[in-house]
């Protein structure tokens, strides 16, 4: 059976909202592995799976996280790069926020799986 595109299934808007909701957690998670800059953060999130934070969204989000005190930044002149890069790292507040958000996410995931396991084994269809 051919895979249907989200637009055909009518879930495109839902996907967008889902990814928007997860964006902050995804960025904090990506930075938790070590200081990183905008493009590298985008690439590591993209490699992880279908989370897809757009290039347009990443920098305002990083700026907001920095203003909120969850990230700290510094400019680095990387070897081989023609321009300085702004590296972001988690602050203590960011680590605490990540820990709390991770717990919430796992609890949310567990609850959804309980609900979805029932639908997979064939609940009653109406209409």
């Amino acid at each position, binding site marked *: 059976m051919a895979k249907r595109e989200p637009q055909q299934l009518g879930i495109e808007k839902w996907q967008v909202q889902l990814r928007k909701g997860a964006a902050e957690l995804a960025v904090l998670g990506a930075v938790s592995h070590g200081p990183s800059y*905008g493009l590298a953060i985008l690439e590591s999130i993209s490699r992880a799976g279908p989370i897809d934070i757009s*290039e*347009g969204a990443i*920098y*305002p989000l990083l700026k*907001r996280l920095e*203003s909120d005190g969850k990230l700290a930044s510094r*400019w680095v002149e990387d070897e081989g790069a023609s321009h300085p890069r*702004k590296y972001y790292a988690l602050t203590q507040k960011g680590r605490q926020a990540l820990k709390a958000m991770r717990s919430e996410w796992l609890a949310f995931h567990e609850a959804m799986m309980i609900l979805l396991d029932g639908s997979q084994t064939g609940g009653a269809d109406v209409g």
Partner: protein
Amino acid sequence: MSDEDLIKDYIERLRVELVRLGVKDAEEVLLEIRGHLMERRAGDGLTSALDALGPPEAYAASFAGRSGRQGSRRRLSVLFARLAVLCTSALLFLISVILIALDLADPGRVGFWVSSIDTTFYLGRYSGDDPSVNDVLGGFFLPIALGAALLTAALIFHQGKACIRTQQG
């Protein structure tokens, strides 16, 4: 238009739109976006990068909000409001403590005295002997003063913490 010119044009248009952010914040954003576009150009992705960022006018709006100058101004006015409450609470606390001390030192002479003839009133120690002037609170004066002292102390503590939080942003 060459890739260099495309990047330069985008950055200059974005610079105009970011004026509300404040000079330092705007320059950091521009440097970061310019670096991003230059790296994407190296990977032949400049066109898709520019498409993803969108028109500078709209992209600049995504940086607005509680960051930068807007955030600083809002924090300052919140801080001033909290300081005003803190100072008022401190003054009322001081007055309450003085009244409690006076009442303990000279019971019966400290209270809220009101004249039945005119609208004169006194808060504190009344040493006169005018029979028309009476302490309207009587025995309740001390508990009320104690309550006021506790309430204002709690307000001072709460607002003090809030001021520190606001200062930290």
